[in-house]
């Protein structure tokens, strides 16, 4: 049963990965990264149960927090063109 869940997670990972590789805009990739973070958390949690060692959950917990911080930092970068506080600058779209 855990295997079924893991297979589903892997399939979804492949799909979001395709989205991250295809783009076409930076935001699509970011969205894919965000979903991928959620999927990794789920994978680690389910894998802990599959191996009978739920202690792995601590890592999943750390991950749930860190991937969020990463996403927000990246977004701040795209909003302001910088990681520090400052004026908003226009950011030209990824040209492809």
């Amino acid at each position, binding site marked *: 049963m855990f295997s079924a869940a893991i297979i589903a997670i892997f399939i979804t990972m492949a799909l979001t990965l395709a989205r991250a590789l295809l783009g076409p805009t930076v935001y699509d990739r970011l969205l894919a990264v965000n979903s991928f973070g959620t999927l990794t958390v789920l994978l680690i949690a389910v894998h802990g149960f599959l191996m009978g060692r739920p202690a792995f959950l601590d890592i999943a917990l750390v991950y749930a927090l860190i991937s969020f911080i990463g996403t927000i930092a990246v977004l701040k970068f795209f909003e302001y063109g910088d990681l520090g506080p400052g004026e908003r600058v226009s950011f030209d779209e*990824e040209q492809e």
Partner: protein
Amino acid sequence: MSEVLINQILLAFMLVIAIGVLYQRNLFAAAMLMSIYSLLAAALFVVLDAVDVAFTEAAVGAGISIILALGTLALTCGEQKPRPVLATGPLLVVLLTGGMLIYGTLDMPYYGDPEAAAHTGVASRYLQDSANEVGPPNVVTSVLASYRGYDTLGETVVIFAAGIGVFALMGRGRRKATRKVK
């Protein structure tokens, strides 16, 4: 679903991303892909039972390094310069090094081999006595913090110095621009 299969799938994903990064001209997109790569690496470490490494990968790989990469991109530019299609010299060097590394792995013991050199030395003593001698339930923790404590101390000092160096480099000239704090 066996553990080996999970490993293989994760490694396959990582390979796909690595190739994707190679073909990606836009450096922001490459940074995004690298963050997925490190998410996968951490998952792989968890599957391989290296929980502490996975913790580090989670904090450093997915959290800090992407921010550092973006900070660098803010200072430089976001598009990679076009390069020659095929560079024979570097390719040769890479192939040679890769071949030597693969040749080197032939001498390594198999994964989980009880006769491996790492398992015949002090490892069994650590596994049996560390709970009494040191305390923490996780053996890796007691090895890191007690049996080879000085080593870890030196490591930490180096990393700390590196961190300070990065801050000193990246934060330069930014002081005055920051908002006034009350």
